[in-house]
């Protein structure tokens, strides 16, 4: 049986981990490679780096980080943030990334997803869907870009269908209402997308405790759950999360 995936996510800026990872025993808790190695040892199923480097000139630094990670960590690695050209994707894959996650560039020009999946294969093209609830009855969500600052007027469910048609291999769905709140995933949003599309879905945004991860899988129908702070602040190890999910009847790789 396919196991549900647990994916720690690191925000990386100019090659350094931001949102202070709190670990004892790490030589350099700001080095993404060290943190990646630690999560790998804890049994993470995949890793995600979100590159939030603002300056264009310093964008290349992430390639070095990816390259060094790929030398030591033998689990899938996804990189997102600022990807807007086929060359960006090629460089990341060549450096050792397995998947790239694309948001703004897809909204700006949806055909980019067709070109990217045509060139590199759907399996490495993750479409990041950042959505915010805009109506309660009927429930509706809208796509946001630029880290949740800019509304687009696009309906999130229609967008997911369209991205699937253009070749998206996976969705990374982040609730802009929940991100950073520790109130749990938006399970209604995730379930709605999961039930109308065929590609796997990663739930993201809002995890504050173990129950949220269970709900993301059980109620939100997510195939994978992504979290940052509960791992960074040492509230739980990946292994503890998996033991908990397993005790509640969820199939995980222990």
């Amino acid at each position: 049986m396919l196991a549900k995936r647990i994916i720690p996510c690191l925000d990386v800026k100019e090659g350094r981990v931001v949102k202070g990872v709190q670990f004892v025993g790490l030589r350099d808790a700001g080095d993404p490679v060290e943190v990646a190695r630690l999560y790998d040892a804890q049994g993470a199923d995949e890793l995600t780096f979100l590159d939030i480097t603002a300056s264009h000139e310093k964008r290349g630094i992430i390639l070095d980080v990816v390259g060094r990670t790929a030398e030591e960590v033998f689990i899938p690695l996804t990189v997102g943030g600022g990807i807007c050209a086929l060359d960006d994707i090629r460089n990341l894959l060549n450096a050792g990334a397995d998947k790239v996650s694309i948001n703004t560039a897809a909204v700006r020009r949806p055909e980019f997803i067709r070109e990217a999946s045509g060139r590199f294969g759907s399996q490495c093209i993750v479409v990041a869907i950042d959505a915010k609830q805009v109506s309660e009855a009927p429930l509706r969500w809208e796509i946001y870009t630029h880290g949740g600052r800019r509304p687009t007027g696009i309906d999130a469910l229609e967008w997911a269908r369209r991205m699937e048609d253009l070749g998206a291999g996976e969705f990374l769905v982040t609730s802009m209402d929940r991100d950073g709140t520790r109130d749990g995933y938006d399970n209604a949003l995730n379930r709605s997308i999961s039930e109308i599309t065929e590609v796997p879905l990663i739930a993201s945004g809002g995890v504050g405790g173990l129950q949220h991860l269970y709900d993301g899988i059980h109620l939100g129908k997510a195939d994978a759950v992504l979290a940052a702070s509960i791992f960074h602040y040492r509230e739980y190890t990946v292994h503890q999360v998996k033991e908990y999910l397993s005790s509640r009847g969820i199939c995980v790789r222990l």
Partner: protein
Amino acid sequence: MIAIVDYGMGNLRSVQKGFEKVGHPARVVQDPESIRAASALVLPGVGAFRDCMGHLEERMLRDPIRAHIESGKPYLGICLGLQILFTESEEFGRCEGLNIIPGKVRKFRFEQEKGGKASPYKIPHMGWNAIRKVNAPPVLADVPDGAYLYFVHSYFVDPEDATVVATKTDYGLEFTSMIWKDNIFATQFHPEKSQALGLSILKNFAELSANGASRP
């Protein structure tokens, strides 16, 4: 020397780093001559079957790869490197493979649930799934029955000859997740992405290759 064939289908870095990590450096090669010179061949790759066959043809690698396999030297196929061994794939109509292992490459198809909801079996089959050993080769010596390994694919192989099936995996149906025939070891899962268990497969393959044995 172990040669990893670069034919333009995805990143080979993880595979190369994987061999390095287990103490058996491998070379990435792109030309027919280097393939002929290799003592063992690794063909990784993810993506489309048709593109893969097209690239092998263009680079004139098809015949040297076939010759390598037929000579009895060790071959490790990963994902596409497994699928292209077969007679044909259903991808985009019909597409011919190397026809070294008789059988077809089929697409996962799952019915919608009641009410038009998408099947819980998503495509691609992506993530960690368990293998069931059927006739496991020595390269799997350190991988226990039921172990989880990493998969990412939308097509699976369906061999005509059941004796080549090394492992099976469940995903809506039971499919062949590895084959073994003499010197041919080929996995649907990705050893290079399957942590220590995956690396043990690369190590065992490298050792078997270094011993010059085509048979255990």
